């Protein structure tokens, strides 16, 4: 490490590291580990680039940004004397920044698709568990141990949110992760709305112990907005909703995810007859070799290389889907809107599916069910409604003081088809149902 290192970032401008600062030396050394460098090869938004060509930024850039966001938050809280009772602030701060940097280490290639393929193959280990595995790996563990924060850093991932004041920076409604990905994803997609006034947001943000149970018996640390922060809290909500509707759950992006998932599942079903792919990390992983040495090699390129191989062969469905992926011939979406009461009649949907099966029309149900991902937390309205504002010394939920969150969320059932012809047939079938 030189006396001073800098990384240029489109959101935070210069992210600096000084050799004279202990915490910066640790952070810089962590960035140099192979586990961390792997994140250069995993896109933050997966297939969103099929809709927003600029959205090719990596998880590497996001985690650097999350760390910088955590730094900014800690600086503000320090200035506001929020850490007066903290015993060893330099160590706590170092561990918090390390956790911000390491929080996404365990993501697999094209995260959502990979986890869906894992689920289809009966593998239940989550990316959070791989994050812990990476933290326990030799090179990362050594850096953290040398800096005296190995156990403290691990604690962020092995105990639940809300335990400590620093925990709120890493995992809460307004944590460094969410704030960075909202700003970064907006920048790279080119979405013009959904801006967040970060300076004002930080200035309005406090950390307090608030009741979390019905009786007020249990209190945990949470971010609370000062009254002057009401507008910026609303801005955050709008940004979240906007990004959710226009980016994270864009119907084209979900279509590509289903197409690639189908291709990968078909390849895994038939790999034993295809010696060309048996030795590839992706196949080895699903064949049972699930050690960290293999997992480390699973990046977006490990899937794209499979796509190229499949496209050049005569492997039936895999080849067809691989070619379609390369040429953006996506699955086609048919949306069934909810009724005025907000429901979709199950009988009609069941009849629809049955008719599709009878006519041999392949389809994929897509019931927005990805709640385990933070980007999709907006599907849970309570998440946004429960952002706290302190008005006249009382905690109020944003949902009760802002008119933004009064209406029910619009719901929709999406069904994907292989091509336009199938979708047209499906539309006719649906129109004929009572």
């Amino acid at each position, binding site marked *: 490490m030189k006396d001073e290192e800098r990384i240029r970032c489109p959101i935070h401008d210069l992210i600096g590291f000084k050799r004279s600062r202990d915490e910066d030396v640790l952070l810089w050394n962590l960035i140099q580990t192979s586990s961390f460098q792997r994140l250069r090869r995993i896109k933050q938004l997966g297939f969103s680039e099929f809709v927003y060509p600029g959205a090719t930024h990596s998880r590497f850039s996001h985690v650097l940004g999350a760390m910088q966001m955590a730094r900014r938050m800690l600086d503000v809280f320090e200035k506001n004397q929020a850490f007066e009772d903290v015993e060893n602030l330099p160590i706590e701060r170092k561990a918090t920044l390390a956790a911000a940097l390491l929080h996404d280490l365990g993501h697999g290639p094209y995260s959502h698709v990979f986890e869906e393929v894992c689920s289809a193959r009966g593998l239940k280990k989550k990316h959070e568990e791989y994050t812990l595995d990476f933290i326990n790996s030799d090179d990362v563990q050594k850096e953290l141990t040398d800096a005296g924060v190995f156990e403290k850093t691990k604690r962020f991932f092995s105990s639940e949110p809300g335990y400590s004041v620093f925990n709120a920076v890493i995992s809460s409604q307004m944590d460094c992760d969410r704030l960075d990905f909202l700003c970064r994803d907006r920048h790279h997609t080119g979405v013009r709305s959904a801006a967040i006034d970060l300076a004002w947001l930080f200035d309005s943000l406090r950390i307090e112990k608030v009741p979390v149970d019905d009786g007020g018996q249990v209190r945990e640390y949470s971010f609370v907005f000062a009254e002057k922060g009401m507008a910026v809290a609303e801005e955050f909500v709008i940004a979240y909703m906007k990004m959710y509707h226009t980016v994270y759950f864009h119907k084209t992006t979900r279509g590509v995810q289903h197409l690639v998932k189908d291709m990968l599942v078909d390849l895994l079903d038939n790999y034993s007859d295809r010696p060309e792919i048996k030795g590839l990390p992706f196949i080895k992983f699903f064949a049972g070799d699930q050690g960290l040495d293999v997992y480390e090699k699973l990046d977006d390129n490990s899937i794209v290389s499979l796509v190229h191989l499949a496209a050049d062969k005569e492997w039936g469905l895999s080849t067809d889907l691989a070619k379609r992926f390369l040429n953006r011939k996506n699955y086609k979406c048919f949306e069934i809107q909810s009724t005025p009461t907000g*429901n*979709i009649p199950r009988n009609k949907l069941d009849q629809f599916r049955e008719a599709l099966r009878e006519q041999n029309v392949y389809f994929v149900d897509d019931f927005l069910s990805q709640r385990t991902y933070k980007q999709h937390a907006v599907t849970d309205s309570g998440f946004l409604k429960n952002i706290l504002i302190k008005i006249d010394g009382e905690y109020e939920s944003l949902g009760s003081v802002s008119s933004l969150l009064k209406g029910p969320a619009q719901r929709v059932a999406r069904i994907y088809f292989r091509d336009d012809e199938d979708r047209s047939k499906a539309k006719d079938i649906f129109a004929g149902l009572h």
Partner: protein
Amino acid sequence: LKIFTAARTCTQVRAAAFHSVAYSGLYIERAKKLNGSFTVFVLCSTVRIKASRYKSTMEGTEMNAEALVLAVLDAVPGHEVRGKKRLQKLSYFAVESGANTDVDFFLHDFGPFSPDVARATDLLSLFGEIIEEDAQYGQAKKYLKVFRLANPGAVAERLPQQTLKSIAVLNDYSTIELEIASTIRFFMREGLSAAAAVSATKELKPSKSEPNIIRRAEDALAKAGLDERRRADQVSDSRSNRI
């Protein structure tokens, strides 16, 4: 390793296997059903071995996640549950106390969690079979999802009598007490002794593990008949003392 059991669901098979290998140093990881047979995965130190295949001997229909959620709502007073977390915990306890289903739970932020139950709840709400509303409750004035059966008379599959009794007992406890109780139970099922399960829960959930909450959680497990591990530990301790 051969296990003979009348169990007919993955959860029950796992439970039967768990009891069969108790104190042997083996740990039952999971049970999986394939073509009518069950495979039980056993951990011996860190090596996973395929241990045994055996057939279910009882006929019966397994509830899917949707039927489980409907049956849990059917079992509670007013057919209403306040909060997603509470619905998850009651569903977990329904499975633990004998509901015939292959729904799996893993340890998540707020204790045992099943993506299948979460997805089923979404779908039932989308189809209008349960009513989902936001409402503010308690001192925290937090918004909670309130889930209610839309047609209480139309629930096709019901929980067994023993499960209904357990759910009735557990429904008297607060959501945080259920969260702690279900986490202790989860750790016990992972092979920890009762005392070690409580310690692991305190470690994982430091701010919620107040002594009175732990006490209430243990009380809930005892009253619901879900503390067999503690009873087994006590028997084992008394035997050791005699020796």
